[in-house]
């Protein structure tokens, strides 16, 4: 298929991770908010992890040429012509 799954996968992690880390930065000093997670700012920490993962996926997905696109024949269509 002409769409490399790593591109949308990378994007959703970039956006979600980005939202979470930004929110984490703005709520850094909020002790009451992070009481639930035992004082750990999960939004900032985990948001960054997700952001980095998303970036790697997105870059790899954009670089790699996906083997199949709508114009070239599919595996089962190949072989017929030649």
């Amino acid at each position, binding site marked *: *298929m*002409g*769409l490399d*799954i790593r591109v*949308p*996968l990378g*994007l*959703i*992690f970039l*956006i*979600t991770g980005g*939202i*979470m880390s930004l*929110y*984490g930065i703005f*709520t850094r000093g909020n002790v009451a*908010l*992070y*009481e*639930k*997670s*035992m004082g*750990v700012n*999960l*939004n900032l920490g*985990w*948001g960054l992890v*997700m952001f980095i*993962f998303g970036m790697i996926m997105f870059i790899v997905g954009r670089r790699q040429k996906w*083997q*199949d696109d*709508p114009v070239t024949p*599919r*595996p*089962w269509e190949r072989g017929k012509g030649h």
Partner: protein
Amino acid sequence: MNLTYIDWLIMLVYFIFVLGIGFALKRYMRTSNDFFLAGRSIPAWVCGLAFISANLGAQEVIGMGASGAKYGIITSHFYWIGAIPAMVFVGIFMMPFYYGSKARSVPEYLRMRFDEKTRAVNAFSFAIMTVFSSGISMYAMALLIQALGLFHGIIPDQYIFHVSVILSAVIVLGYIFLGGLTSAIYNEVLQFFLIVAGFAPLVWIGLKNVGGWDGIKHTLPTTMTRSWQGMAHASTNSLGVEWVGLAMGLGFVLSFGYWCTDFLVIQRAMAADSEVSARRVPLIAAIPKMFFPFLVILPGLIAVSVTSHMPGAGAAVVSHANPGSAVPLDEAHPHGIIPQKMDALSGKPVLDTNGNPVYNYDLAIPVMLLHFFPTGILGLGLTALLASFMSGMAGNVTAFNTVWTYDIYQAYINKKGSDQHYLWMGRMATIGGVILSVAAAYAATSFNNIMDALQLIFSLVNAPLFATFLLGMFWKRTTGHGAFTGLLAGTGAALVHHGLTLPADAQPGIHGAWIHLVHTYPSDMAQNFWTAIFAFTVNLLVTMAVSMVTAPRPESELVGLVYSLTPKPVETHLEWYEKPSTLAFAVLGMLVVLNLVFA
């Protein structure tokens, strides 16, 4: 529940992507092959993640968390014994026939190998099953949304259930209608990573709270933290099953019957871009599958270990269950943050016959999310939960539309349609499947017992299935008549066995013994496993006996369908580390290590 705009934003991003993938893939859906088989062009790792994600539906996540809270790490047998060996087997031995035979579905393989009537039995029972499974998934999701009060204050309470059902139906319908199997697979990959991203921090923070694995071991009885302890006898472990029943019933008959024959998962492997890839799919899937107990079962254990918010914490630490009784651990270990079951009508806690409160273990994972996640990451956790519900539903819908179009519509209703017509039919079947699922979800709301009965019927139909495939693929003498009678006899045997036995402390009726009580099992799980063992054995013997007296098909017709008549897959162009068998050994090695660590 206190959700803020940030949680809603994260969930919204997910739903935009889910539908966006459908729209992006729409233009590639040119033929029925694209729609039903993803053009057989998907790389192995993508199919592999979809393979487990499709199986990781609502019942799985909620049920395994609940079971972890109730029974402990022993639940991981459902993964380690109950999935990995079968996944390795299907990849190494069976995939060459599914993929190589060019069959477009599992029932179609049965027609090529046996005959029309064997296919019909499988196609119809499977189609009905998928619709009900996705309906149950939808029902469970709507119930959970209601219980968590997700839409509380946004829409009136009495509409929450309806809105949840309709919303999930429309979204799943949307992305499958547009992008077919490819869309479902892509979304399953997305869902896989979101589930990991949502649950991994939960486990981390939870473990931190209870003092790590050592803390759990300290709080809970040892039977909950060791997976093999007490397996020698049914009365000394919390499942109420002895190791023979576990290994044969769960590890062999039920798990091989599911992973090796269920089109829902096999379809993901059939979408792979080559036979070698298709064989790798279940093996790749086995690796994360092996570690899923840490994501879905461990939160259940943590939930019962958390003591900080419990009245009288510490007092509840129980050294060991009373010996002798089969399933005592239920009430004998701490309940942590597991809430009591509430009566939906009266709003009062439900009490059992002895006046003790009943705990709602199904809420183990959702309660963990609410307990540990602050707003922001809470949105991510809820997204992960919703993602798992959707992937389970979508898996069923894609399997349904394929089996309906190829094995029912094309086989019995319209044989001579154009490819475009079948593509259109597939889209219509998607709509039909989703509408039927919604109907099933509503049926579940009004007749709770009907769902139990259906689950039972599925297990009776599925139990003997693996014998048919095993003989069909590895014994060339097996005939169509043999397979057909064996299949029916096996289901009959399951029915009779169920009618004659009963789990301990259950009343005759839907739970068994509706013919006559002959034998009592220590638990319903033991009964279930032994029903499967009987069904399998009867199917095996009857199929062999009938095959011996009926005429076999000529060997030339069976090339590519039977092991002994099919050339072995050529692997000379692969390096040793690229071969599926190397991967299989690595997977099995890891499995042994995991079992030793948690023995």
